[in-house]
């Protein structure tokens, strides 16, 4: 077990800079998820920690030792690959024990460890099979077993669930979490799926364009995103963004969405935004769950307005509604009993206590 530290890590391929100076501290026992769109540099970062890619600049430390030039086999890490990378000619047990056999562990010890891992992953009856006789989920378990038996300092997961179908993915996600709760090994996990990131991570690292956008717990990222990218990336359906302006009306600060739609800001928000320039182009960010059907009781900071619904999506426990404000499609989340009908007007409420105000030019959340 060990902590992992990245200091100003850069990866350059000829002309392209894939990773542009990353600083990251991962504590012992922590489960950190790197998340971001394709090509954001998250896999490259993971592969640099594994030693499968050289680093162009900066330092990587595992357990306090700089490992920049240490080959993968001496870094004491284990990696689970997207396509499992099981050795097709070996049985499950041989796959899992390969690393230990190379290190010449005693046979009895190998057997104990493989049995233990197989029991933990519920693959005891599969140990004599070859990978091609296994389903995708079973292969993924074996790949995890291969990592567990090594008892390494760090687990690295490279999009391990991407090849599984949706149902299995949820199941394996829980499985991975259980395993981590048992073995407590420091884990770095790469995914492009923000749901995976949110559900698995102690801390999430959102990456974009070779840089870290924000690091935080899933709740921090969800409720206090630092940038427009994080705000839009985390959460499903995504956060709504509407152009807006701040205005002083009758001595109170208001937010104006269109000529006709203008809301007073709750006092806490008004206080927070009082230094914001009135001429800056701004955006209002609001999650779908903060746009609901109007309630008969007025609540502070919750303002009502009318909209004509474009599309409704009944999901069972809730109904997603879509409508247009000033050319932007807005998504809201209403009670399934709220009588939302496509093409019909509806009285809606927006909860400005949970609003985010963004600078349109810089993308920063104010």
């Amino acid at each position: 077990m060990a902590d992992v530290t990245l200091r100003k890590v850069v990866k350059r391929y000829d002309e392209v800079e894939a990773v542009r100076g990353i600083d990251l501290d991962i504590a012992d026992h922590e489960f950190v998820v790197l998340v971001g769109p394709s090509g954001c540099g998250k896999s490259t970062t993971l592969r640099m920690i594994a030693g499968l890619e050289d680093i162009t600049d900066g330092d990587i430390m595992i357990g306090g030792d700089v490992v920049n030039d240490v080959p993968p086999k001496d870094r004491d890490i284990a990696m689970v690959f997207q396509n499992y990378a099981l050795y097709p000619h070996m049985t499950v047990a041989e796959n899992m024990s390969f690393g230990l056999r190379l290190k010449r562990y005693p046979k009895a010890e190998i057997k104990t460890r493989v049995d233990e891992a197989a029991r933990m992953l519920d693959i005891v009856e599969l140990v004599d099979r070859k990978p091609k006789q296994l389903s995708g989920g079973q292969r993924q378990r074996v790949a995890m077993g291969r990592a567990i038996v090594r008892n390494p300092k760090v687990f690295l997961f490279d999009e391990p669930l991407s090849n599984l179908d949706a149902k299995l993915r949820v199941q394996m996600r829980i499985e991975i979490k259980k395993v981590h709760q048992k073995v407590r090994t420091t884990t770095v996990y790469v995914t492009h799926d923000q749901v995976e990131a949110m559900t698995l991570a102690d801390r999430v690292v959102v990456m974009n364009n070779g840089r870290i956008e924000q690091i935080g717990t899933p709740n921090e990222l969800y409720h206090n995103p630092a940038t427009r990218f994080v705000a839009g990336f985390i959460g499903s359906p995504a956060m709504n963004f509407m152009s807006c302006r701040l205005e002083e009306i009758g001595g109170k600060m208001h937010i104006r969405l269109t000529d006709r739609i203008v809301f007073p800001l709750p006092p806490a928000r008004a206080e927070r935004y009082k230094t914001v320039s009135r001429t800056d182009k701004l955006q209002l960010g609001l999650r779908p769950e903060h746009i609901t059907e109007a309630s008969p009781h007025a609540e502070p900071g919750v303002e009502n307005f009318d909209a004509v619904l474009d599309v409704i999506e009944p999901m069972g426990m809730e109904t997603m509604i879509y409508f247009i404000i000033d050319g932007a499609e807005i998504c809201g989340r209403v009670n399934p009993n709220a009588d939302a009908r496509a093409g019909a007007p509806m009285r809606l409420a927006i909860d400005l206590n949970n609003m985010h105000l963004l600078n349109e030019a810089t993308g920063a959340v104010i």
Partner: protein
Amino acid sequence: MADVAIERKDSAPPRAARKRASLRTALKRKSTAAFLMTLPLILLISLLVIYPAFYSLHLATLNKSMQRFVGLGNFQFLFTRETFWLVVQQSCIFAITAVIFKALIGFVVAHFVHNIPAKGQRKWRGMLLVPWVIPPAMSTLAWLWLFDPSYSAFNYLLAGIGVDRIPWTGETGWARFSVILVNIWVGAPFFMIMYLASLKSVPDQLYEAAAIDGANWWQRIWYVTLPMMRNIIAITTLFSLIVTFANFDIVRILTAGGPLDRTHIFATWAFRIGIEGGDIPLGASVSLFMIPILAIAAVFILRDINKRGNEA
């Protein structure tokens, strides 16, 4: 499933129509169509391979003038001749040594080519295939000049560094060395290209997983590359063993079996006896000896190749 349902629906069609329909379904069946499409090839093979094979079996049972049936007489006669056993021994040495070196060189070169960046790889691949692409009869002539005892390039170079001339094709040991060398030169590119293709089909992530598991380069080859290439290695080795065993042109042109029959292999000796010596039935008997030897090799090498199948 669907066919059954359709047949049931129109349960009693007229006889003629049913006959036509059954012909159509027979044609529609994949196996029938496949058989018809391969039929020309099957006919060609029967004509050019199966017929001559049986004809040579028949020939091997005749006497020298091809007038009288002698049963296994030719074989009995061969067993008593020292030269025959010499040829058996030489064929085995020739084929096994050449195939081992071809495979080794092909394997090593394939790794080198595999590690050349993709841009320059085509060029190298093309150049390395040249020995295999030139008709061996032509390239062997060039080798013959290189091996010439008096004026050859090799001996000239050796003289330059003060080494005595080597009788490349004139002395038993050197003559055997020379024919094997040329055979390796011609055959190694085939192994190279087969191994290269097979190397390319090994997923990179297996090597990465092995690297993380702690395997050094040699263990990566031993535990990942070789098992993944096992089938290709078996098939190319067998194929090359057959071709090398039955080799004719290189030995014929380079040494013609000499000196003193010391480089004869089955095909060249069969030619010497059958065509040049005028005893066609005896020549046929000699060439038939290749079949049991190769059959045993095939069984050994292809054993459980199906079982291993495509494990990936």
